[in-house]
């Protein structure tokens, strides 16, 4: 009898490998529900709060929740990139823009009229329920996996199969950096 069997036979049934797997599954389910709630609350704050600073904070919360969802989808690398790029770069950039441009969104409704809120709600609701209906009704056929999608495979494919797109994205980022500098600098010397 090897060591693992000895340990398993000594433990109560909750702590054996099968029992632990069951508990881990249930805990994962609870954590997933909490993460969904966090993501949706962050999204509501981001699209609905009166002050834009709060909207950016809600956006950051929503992005952290989405990163956790990527973790549930078997892609820890994309989850880390989500936190790094969205929370660390995009949210901070938007916060800087709020401080530089000082936008005020506290006027309830301007020339667009008081109808813009309900109309927006109706439009968004129609789009949302349409997409939910599509997702619920369609039968999606799963094709067997040919690999596990590990970080090593992502790196290999990025530098072989998708190396062209990789280089193009770096050029796009370079052009975006230079372009945003030129746009934001224009008229500064006046």
């Amino acid at each position, binding site marked *: 009898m090897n060591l693992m069997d000895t340990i398993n036979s000594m433990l109560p049934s909750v702590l054996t490998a099968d029992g632990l797997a069951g508990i881990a599954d*249930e805990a994962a*389910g*609870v954590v997933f*529900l909490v993460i969904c709630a966090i*993501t*949706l609350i962050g*999204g*509501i704050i*981001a*699209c*609905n709060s009166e002050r*834009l600073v709060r909207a*950016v904070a809600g*956006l950051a919360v*929503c992005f952290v929740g*989405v990163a956790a*969802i*990527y973790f549930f*989808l078997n*892609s820890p690398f*994309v989850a880390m990139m989500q936190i790094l*790029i*969205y929370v660390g770069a*995009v949210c901070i*950039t*938007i916060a*800087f823009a709020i401080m*530089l*441009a*000082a*936008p*005020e969104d506290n006027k309830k409704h*301007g020339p*667009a009229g008081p109808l*813009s*809120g309900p109309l*927006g709600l109706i*439009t*968004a609701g129609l*789009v*949302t329920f349409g*997409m*939910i209906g599509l*997702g*619920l009704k369609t039968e*999606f056929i*799963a094709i067997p996996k040919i*690999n596990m*999608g590990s970080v090593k*495979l*992502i790196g290999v494919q*990025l530098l072989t199969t*998708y190396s062209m797109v990789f280089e193009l994205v770096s050029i*796009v980022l370079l052009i*975006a950096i230079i*372009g*945003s500098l030129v*746009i934001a600098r*224009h*008229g500064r010397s006046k």
Partner: protein
Amino acid sequence: MSMLNLHNSLTTYLVLAAILFGMGIYGLITRRTLVGMLIASELILVASSINIMAFNRFTAPDPVIGQIFTLFIMAIAAAEAAIGLSITVAVYRNYKTVDTEEIVDLKG
């Protein structure tokens, strides 16, 4: 299917992404400043990324492709945010406001 097994079904992620997408549409319609609209558009982009990642996890044969696609979406979204915010700053410098109702001049 129990509540605790939701994270193992494709439909959950599709519904979540649809709700986030709807929030983005709502924000895009009701926000009256450029920065608010940019925040809403980030929500839309993230919803589409969740959709792609969910299909990548549950139906696609090669789970690497969806992850690479999502990484490219992130890079493009970062570029879009940088350019959009610099345009916002330039607009603010010229008009002293970023309210979408007041930026109505078309002068070259």
